[in-house]
């Protein structure tokens, strides 16, 4: 799949933002007043910034309001509804903390649930697609959720939680990579099943429909950079998981914390890039590509 920067930025930033909102919602850290204000500003900047980035890949962002209507069937619509609900609830809860010094715990819990729900709906947009076997895995939502909650713990300064959850997310990441590598093969979809010609003999794509490229080839048949996948995986793992864990275990100050967050963000970005760049859409088979 074509790794569109807007979508990678969106899933990376808003994943982290909603992760932080989750922790704020359940009351960790127990901040009020100005400190709470700073936390909420960071969380909203990430979550809303990510959502705005995602609208850049829309052809007609001016009609985006219509995307809230089909929540009965569409995960993308559910994501929109969930995100707005989470942002509204957490804004009320945050206002209580910042301006009144009051913690409305129930509202916080609802906001936390909606925040995690938003990340889950995002992951389901990808996980639901049978056409991309590497995404169509139970591991996909687990990876998105653990990453978001672990990253949120890191942002919230919940060191012990971060130290527990980052290794869990790392484990899901590795499991996802290993399972994903064989997903297309295990899906059973081949050029033979795509054309129905497997009974006649060995099928080979002889001529594409046009000599030029088309939307499908640009959107779904991204092969550049896959050859660096192993190096990038090591990079993503070191930066996104190993480095923050190391930084959190050494004697700890504000700078280490900031560095840990930056490393984590960079690592997750690379991992998300790979999530798209490595994903094979079955339509590639029709073009003799994958």
């Amino acid at each position, binding site marked *: 799949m074509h790794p569109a920067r807007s979508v990678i930025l969106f899933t990376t930033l808003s994943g982290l933002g909603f992760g932080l909102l989750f922790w704020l919602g359940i009351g960790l850290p127990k901040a009020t007043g100005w400190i709470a204000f700073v936390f909420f500003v960071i969380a909203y900047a990430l979550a809303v910034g990510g959502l705005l980035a995602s609208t850049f890949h829309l052809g007609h962002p001016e009609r985006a309001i219509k995307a809230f209507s089909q929540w*009965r069937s569409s995960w993308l619509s559910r994501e929109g509804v969930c995100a707005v609900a989470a942002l509204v609830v957490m804004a009320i809860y945050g206002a209580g903390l910042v301006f009144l010094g009051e913690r409305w715990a129930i509202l916080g819990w609802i906001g936390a649930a909606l925040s995690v729900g938003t990340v889950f709906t995002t992951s389901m947009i990808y996980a639901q697609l049978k056409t991309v076997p590497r995404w169509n895995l139970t591991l996909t939502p687990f990876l998105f959720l653990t990453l978001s909650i672990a990253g949120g713990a890191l942002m919230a300064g919940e060191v012990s939680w971060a130290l527990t959850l980052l290794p869990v997310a790392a484990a899901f990441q590795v499991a996802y990579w290993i399972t994903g590598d064989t997903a297309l093969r295990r899906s059973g979809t081949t050029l033979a*099943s795509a054309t129905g010609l497997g009974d006649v003999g060995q099928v080979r794509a002889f001529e594409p429909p046009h000599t030029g490229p088309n939307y499908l080839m640009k959107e779904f048949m991204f092969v550049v950079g896959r050859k660096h996948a192993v190096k990038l995986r090591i990079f993503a793992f070191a930066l996104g998981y190993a480095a923050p864990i190391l930084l959190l275990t050494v004697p700890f100050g504000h700078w280490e914390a900031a560095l840990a967050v930056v490393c984590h963000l960079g690592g997750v970005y690379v991992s998300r890039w790979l999530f798209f760049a490595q994903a094979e859409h079955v339509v590639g088979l029709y073009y003799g590509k994958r």
Partner: protein
Amino acid sequence: MTQLPETTTRKLGLVIDLDTCVGCHACVVSCKGWNTENYGAPLSDQEAYGADPSGTFLNRVHSYEVQPDDGAAQLIHFPKSCLHCEDAPCVTVCPTGASYKRTEDGIVLVNERDCIGCGLCAWACPYGAREMDAAEKVMKKCTLCVDRIYNENLPEVDRVPACVRTCPAGARHFGDLGDPDSDVSKLVEERGGMDLMPEMGTKPVNKYLPPRPKDRIEDQIDILAPLLAPVAEEPKGFMAWLDKALEKI
């Protein structure tokens, strides 16, 4: 509404005969011709006369080489457009309700005024049947020529999809695949019509007729063939010397 209808009254669709398609691309051209000036936004081209031309098409013809275990390879031309699936994943993923499947005839359409151009429906289609128009930024797909098949301003013979009307080989058939007594259903029955990627669970309405087995050329082409065997032998003596000498010059 992007929830799929439980059932549709009819299941209009195409039956494509891979045995007779000659890969002329006439259906591609007539499809583009009709659909660029009728239903919805035009099908734009980018750099049509430049070095790297591309454009939106609702029907594309691939060609595959199929190599049987023994015998000669076959070239099979393979037109592909929307299959108007019964369990259309492209419809249910659409967040805006722009994509829908009609209850009356099962045609899958996009309401372009509602489409935000998110592209998710194209991601969900296994067949590459949806293309985002680069100029209009809305999703385009085969409409089964919904503006021809019911169009009383056209002579009756033209009330079929443009590709079907155009195909010079008679490789494309249009009809109600939900009616077991229709011509297309009988054709599918008779020729063992098949689904593409059945494992995707999309239940395509369009069917493909597999190529018929080819005649086999057994051991000998012709009884006279042995008489045509080459008679040249290795030259000896003077002729061998001459042969070598001439080769050197």
